[in-house]
């Protein structure tokens, strides 16, 4: 990458039809690009596979959150009912897995929800207040009647002229260089 490229975010290219952007995405995937994205006004089924995207890692954080919640619930009820202030309630043991079970699963659900919510924040790199794409006039139409592929400059394959030609060869219509 040369000096000039460092101030460039990437190259954007618009498409008019779903099938065009879909097949273009497949070709970008097959060319081995890692840092790139497709923007569409509505979800296109099968686009995940066309882009070669892996499954979201968020469920792992959900599971981690759930396990943390279950453990927290166990420790919470054990500490309060059995350790810090042992108390017999309704003839039940100080601590068993049965009587505090509502607490345990509510904690599991709460922490799993935290894991999911903050997990998607982390993996979506949120909060983010601005994005170089927002400066692009044609980007507004991506929420209306246009599809867009963006190749980002941070991808090792990125070279301004070659990437521009590559997008042209995919049948892109309007090709724009996005600056940071």
């Amino acid at each position, binding site marked *: 990458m040369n000096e000039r490229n460092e101030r460039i975010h990437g190259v954007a290219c618009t498409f008019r039809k779903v099938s065009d952007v879909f097949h273009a995405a497949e070709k970008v995937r097959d060319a081995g690009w890692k840092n790139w994205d497709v923007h569409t006004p509505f979800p296109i*089924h*099968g686009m995940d596979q066309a882009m070669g995207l892996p499954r979201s890692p968020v*469920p792992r954080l959900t599971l981690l959150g759930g396990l943390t919640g279950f453990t927290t619930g166990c420790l919470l009820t054990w500490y309060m009912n059995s350790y810090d202030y042992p108390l017999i309630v*309704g003839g*039940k043991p100080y601590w068993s897995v049965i*009587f505090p079970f509502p607490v345990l699963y509510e904690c599991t659900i709460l922490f799993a929800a935290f894991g999911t919510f903050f997990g998607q924040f982390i993996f979506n790199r949120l909060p983010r207040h601005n994005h170089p794409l927002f400066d692009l006039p044609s980007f507004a139409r991506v929420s209306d009647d246009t599809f867009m592929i963006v190749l980002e400059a941070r991808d090792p394959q990125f070279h301004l002229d070659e990437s521009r030609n590559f997008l042209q060869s995919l049948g892109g219509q309007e090709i724009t260089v996005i600056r940071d």
Partner: protein
Amino acid sequence: MSSSSPHALTAHWKKFLAAGVVAMAVLWYFACVGVAHHENRQALSILVGSLFWISILIGMLMLTMITRVFDAGWAPLVRRNWEHLIIALPVVILLGVVPLAFSTGFRHALWDWTNAEHLLPGGHTVGHDPILQAKSWFLNEKFFLIRISLYVLVFGALVTLLRRWSFAQDTDRTAGHTHRLHAVSAVGIPLSAVTLTMLAFDCLMALSYHWFSTMYGVWFFALSIRLALAVTVILTYKLSNGGWLDGLLNQAHRHVLGCLMLAFTVFWAYISFSQYFLIYTANIPEETFWYNIREIDAATGLKSEWWSVSMYLIFGFFLLPFLSLLFYRTKIVAGRLLTVAWIIVMGGLVDLWFNALPRQVYDKSTPEGFVVTPFLTSSLFLDLLAIAGFGAIVFALFLSSAAKNETIPVHDPRILESINYHE
């Protein structure tokens, strides 16, 4: 896919029918001999075997109506198989529960509360039981038999309507049938909910009539849907390998069935645990004895074999399917989903055993005045024969229905959406 050339598989329906008739003959022979010798375990096999299929078929009936009401786009392809199957629901009730309930000998042998001479733990008889007298507005033989007849009528009527208009659409291509089926389903869901609750009360809960649980109907519903989904996964897999779903069933269909299996696994656990939890917390002897005889051997104070069965339900019927189904790949890889489905079918049977088999039998030689019927007996094989026998009849009806009607709802307004269903 035309009605004039049914799929080759459907030709096997007579073999299934023959196997079912032979199994019924053997089962009823054993049951009659048993009752003549004052034993009820053989009759209980017929009850368990029929309830296993009643439960599956009620689940399929509910799924048929729920997918109708919600206009589920993925459903038509799968639902047609439910429509072929549910005709067996009134038949299995008629062949299993009805003769047991209507013949005095079997009724007295299975439902203790119908037999005034029956000895209770402690030595007094059912006829002198104040608890039964208080419940007699519901638990009296006349009303009991009326209810059993109503189950056949209500389910029979619903099944007939749901099938008739769905099949009629194949030939006359009228979208109006879809609207009519909406209406039937909207009425049918609450009606079936009440009917299946009463059926669970009468056929299972009333086996130990001192005990009561307001969650019982919901438990039976959750179990039914779980079993129905598991059987659907197994059946559609079979039908997509050499059957009429060849090349039609895709990953997204497995995914949606897998997601529902996960949801109802959690729901079943939630309901089963809530029932236990409420009884555990309230600690009323009239309720707790039901769980006590399923945990502790009263003579020794140690855990009985029923305790192992309950542990199997927690770990084998809930935790294992739950943890497996959490993974996306379990829901889309056919072999894995199939394995989980078989685990659920097995677990569902064990859950039925857990609910139906343990009972207190009067025995004055023990200090408690009763013994609990054991789990591991050779009669379990008779239960398996009953399940195979009723299953053969169910599949005979399924295949003969598939031979006479379309196996794919070719003119369902959503059939293309169902065939092209994607995640």
